[in-house]
Structures are given as structure tokens and as C-alpha cells.
């Protein structure tokens, strides 16, 4: 029982990182139908930003987290403006290849500037482990879980309660109609990228602290997993991304606990395929009937 609870705790903290990343994927996909392959690399940029501000400017954790969110938000807007905006009306696959190109550029550009060595992330927080019964949870795990949940709630509030959120939802339903009623599509899309990238930046700093190592290629695998999470939950849906992230995090830790760590990724993909076959639009997605 204790081991199950322990794995639950580990799975939830890993899952919340996937969920934060998946939110960025799902928002961008919802609004411009683009699989933003570079999203995982924005998370890597966030981790490197955290590394530098903590080491060079001696920021504390919270300052590093917030500055990384702001920096990554701006960075995401810049990427959208430079690479994706010119392709707004092109075939979707061209935009997808551009996103892959941006991902390659960020990975290799960072490897060129900072070498591809693995660096150890500065430990700004003293690790304290709390023992509740047989379950041990570190303050960092707790922090990841709490910060992620707070950010997700904030995001939901922004999307549901603010004017900009309303505009985002309108653009994702029908961009042309949204433009007709006076919504500035460019601003709305930029704002979406800012939000998604800020969440990725936060995830980057937290994962650096949790795993204690960062490198320019660290965004690749979590990026793909987070995208899988977004699809699993129902892409375009914010609660779906959160659920998908937690499901994948839990699944991975459970497989690891059962001694099948070599097959943990295979299990993730197998579950994904099975769910897509049963519910082709993901766990929360609704299948829209195609009309002629």
C-alpha cells in the first residue's frame, strides 16, 4: 500500500510537469492547429535561463521561476512572429516542418553556444523530505505539484474569465468570424504563445531543480511525451491536457515500479493508441461529425 502511494506521489509530480508542457501544446493547437514541435525546446530554454540567473545573478527560486516565465513568454512570441506568422495561410504541413526546423535550431544553437555538455542545476533549495506514514515526499516534489496546480488554475481563470481568454476561445472556434467581430487575431495568437511558453519556462526551471541536470537536448523526449499527453486528453482542451499529463506521469512511474522500466515508453504509446481507437478525439474530446 505504501509503495502504491509512494508511486502515486512520484507519478503526480512528474505528471504535473508533463501537464504544464501539454497545456502549451494544446493551446497552440487549439488556436492555429499547429503541432508546435519547438515547445519542448522552449522548456529547455527556460531551464537554461534558470541556470544562468541563479548562478550569475544569484536569484532565488521564485525570482528565477517568474523571470523564466516572462523570458520564455517573450521568446515564444518572438518565435511565433518570426517563424510561424509568415506561414499562417500555408499548408499545415509546411508550418509543421518549420516548427521542426525551429526545434532543431534551438537545440543545435544552444549546443553551439553553450556546448552540449550536461550541466548540474544549482540547488537553490535545500531538499527536505517529509515522511507521512510510509510515504516520503520531498519539498521539491510538493513545490512542483503546488506550483503546477496554481498555474493551471490561473490559466483556466485567464481563459474563462478575461476578455483575452474569450478572444482566444473565439479564435479557436472560428478565426474568420472572430475577426469579423473585431478580435485582433495576431494579438490573440501572440498571447496564446506567450501563455504556453511561460508555462513551459516554469516547467523547465522546476525540472532542472528536480532532476538536477540540464542539457540542450533535454526538451526532446518530454516535448513528445507532453504532446502525447495533450492528444490523450483531447487536443485543444485545457482540462484534457492536464488529465493527459497526469495519466502519462502515473503510467510511467507505475511501469517503473513494476520493474518494466525498459517498456515504460512503449506502455505510454500503447495506451495512447488504444484510447485513440476507442475515443478517436481523446479522453475528453468530442467527435465532431463531418458534414458534406
Amino acid at each position: 500500500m505504501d509503495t502504491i502511494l509512494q508511486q502515486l506521489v512520484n507519478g503526480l509530480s512528474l505528471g504535473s510537469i508533463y501537464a504544464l508542457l501539454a497545456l502549451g501544446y494544446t493551446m497552440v493547437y487549439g488556436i492555429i492547429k499547429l503541432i508546435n514541435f519547438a515547445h519542448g525546446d522552449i522548456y529547455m530554454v527556460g531551464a537554461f535561463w534558470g541556470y544562468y540567473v541563479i548562478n550569475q545573478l544569484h536569484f532565488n527560486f521564485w525570482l528565477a521561476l517568474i523571470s523564466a516565465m516572462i523570458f520564455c513568454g517573450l521568446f515564444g512570441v518572438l518565435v511565433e512572429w518570426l517563424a510561424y506568422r509568415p506561414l499562417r495561410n500555408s499548408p499545415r504541413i509546411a508550418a509543421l516542418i518549420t516548427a521542426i526546423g525551429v526545434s532543431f535550431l534551438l537545440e543545435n544553437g544552444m549546443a553551439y553556444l553553450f556546448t552540449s555538455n550536461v550541466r548540474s542545476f544549482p540547488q537553490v533549495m535545500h531538499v527536505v523530505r517529509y515522511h507521512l506514514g510510509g510515504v516520503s515526499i520531498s519539498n521539491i516534489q510538493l513545490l512542483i505539484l503546488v506550483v503546477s496546480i496554481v498555474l493551471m488554475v490561473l490559466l483556466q481563470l485567464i481563459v474563462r474569465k478575461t476578455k483575452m481568454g474569450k478572444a482566444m476561445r473565439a479564435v479557436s472556434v472560428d478565426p474568420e468570424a472572430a475577426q469579423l467581430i473585431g478580435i485582433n487575431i495576431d494579438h490573440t495568437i501572440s498571447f496564446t504563445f506567450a501563455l504556453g511558453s511561460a508555462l513551459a519556462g516554469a516547467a523547465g526551471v522546476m525540472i532542472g531543480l528536480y532532476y538536477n541536470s540540464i542539457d540542450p537536448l533535454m526538451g526532446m523526449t518530454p516535448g513528445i511525451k507532453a504532446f502525447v499527453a495533450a492528444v490523450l486528453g483531447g487536443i485543444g482542451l485545457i482540462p484534457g491536457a492536464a488529465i493527459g499529463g497526469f495519466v502519462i506521469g502515473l503510467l510511467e512511474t507505475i511501469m517503473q515500479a513494476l520493474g518494466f522500466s525498459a517498456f515504460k515508453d512503449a506502455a505510454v504509446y500503447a495506451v495512447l493508441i488504444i484510447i485513440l481507437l476507442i475515443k478517436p478525439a481523446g479522453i475528453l474530446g468530442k467527435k465532431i461529425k463531418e458534414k458534406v
Partner: protein
Amino acid sequence: MKKNLKYNLTWLVLMVVGFVLINVLEFGGIIDALGEQTLVTIGINIILATGLNLIIGFSGQFSLGHAGFMAIGAYVCALITTSIATPMGMVIGMIAGAAVSALVALIVGIPTLRLDGDYLAIATMGVAEIIRIILNNLKITNGPAGLYNIPLLATWPVVYIMVCLTTLLIVNLIHSRDGRAIMSVRENEIASESMGVNTTKWKVIAFVVGAATAAIGGALHANYIQTIAPTDFGIMNSINILIIVVLGGIGSITGTFVAAAVLGVLDLVLQNFGTLRMVIYSLALILLMVFKPSGLLGTRELSIRKIFNKFGHSKQKGDA
């Protein structure tokens, strides 16, 4: 019939001339070892990318799992050729690899091809990753270390012949009645279904043929590089093949040839740049896509028939 014979003969002559030309250049020392390596890589990439182009460009199904089928072909052929290290073994290996890969594609394709667009892409990516993880954990495939000491059977002429054969197969498929059925699925699934086209069947056929050619590409890769490991067939490899298809123009086989050649030469030129190489490569990719979103050739094809017709017309005009 006679008319087609003319075009077919022209193509055959072009293929033979290309083969002889490259051999002459090689004997003359103009193409060195590095050049030959580039040519073989380009050839293998053409085989892989034409198969993917059939799936993405002609049947309109977005697959991100090409490297998985490539891996099946590579492993099956490598295992066969290590025990039968003769050209005959290579032939058996390629056929067996293509057969296994086609079978897996059939099993995977029937359920997953009901999905559309990005859902299919992510499902096929998942399939490819599952294949890779299984290869990573099997005893017969030697786990993460992979297979080595595979005999060098995929020499330059073998690759050239296979490029010609697979391209012929795919181009003929596209230009047949079946090919038109496949393309009608891409254009409008509902419309083609109402015209009596069995859309699921044609989607699966395109997927299976694409997977079989991917296996041939993988087999050649294994017997040229001589070592293979599961990491050679990850998501990034599927993406690299996808890049060739999109860069050349989705739905243009000629474009695939051009893009594979351009990328191969670019790779050769950038060899000296070290870490900067991939930075330049990715920048080139982004700029090409931003300024030419439909790919280098769009959907245009090189057609001997059109050239002949044009030639014929201008002569007629001259006569009149």
C-alpha cells in the same frame, strides 16, 4: 501501346545512362569515396521518401512512423544476410524484410487508419516507437547494442537498381486505376466513398506499400552501414524522411528526388562546419519553408510524355 513504349524506352535509357555515367565518373576519380557515400545515402533516402510520399502525398494520410518500418526491414535483412552472406541472401533479406514490414503495416493500419490528420500522425509515431522499444529489448536483435558485422552487400549498383525498381513500382501504382482511387481518397474522402471507392482499403494499401519500400530502404541502410542499433530508428529519423518529402513538394516524386539530392549535397558541403552544421541546416529548413511553403517543386512532376508532346507541338507549329 506503341506510344507508351516510346516513353518507357526513354526512361529505361535514362536509367542506364545515369548508371553508366556515375560509374564512369567513379572510375575517372571524379566521385571519391565520400562522394559515393553521399550517393548511396541519397539513394536510400529516395527509396524511403518515395514510400512516405505515397502515404502522405498521394493517399493523404499523415504518417510519422516511417522509421519503424525501416527498422523492421533493416533488422530482418541484417539477420538473414549475416547467416547467408551472398547477394542471394540480400535478395531474400529484402523480400523477407518487406514482407514482415508489410504484414505489420497491415495489422497496424487497419485499425489506426480510421483516425484522421494529426491523430493518425501521433498514433503511427507511437507504433514506430513501440517497434523500436521491442527491438531494444529482444534477444535476437541484441538489445540496445544492436547488430554489427553485417556483410557489405548494399553496394552502390544495388542501391541504384533498387531506387529504380521502387520508384517504378510507386510511379506505376500512382498512374494506374488503383492510384487514381488512392488520390481520390486524398482529395475528398466522402466524395470518393460515394463514388464507390473503398477508402479504407486504398488507405491501407498505400500504407502497406509505403511500409514495404521503407523496409527495403532500411535493408539497404543496414547492409551499407554494416551496424544498426535501435537508436538509428527513432522519431527523429521519421521526421528526417518527412522533411525530404515536404521539402520536395508533397505529392511530387520528382520533388522527392530533388530534395533528397539537395539535402545530401548540403550535408556533404556542411561536413566541415562542425557543430555549426546543424544550425545552418535548420536555418536553411526554416527559410525554405517560410519562402516556399509548397516545397521545391510543389506538385509538379518531370514527365517524358509532356516533354515529347511539347517538342512535337513546336515541330508541328514550325511545319505549319
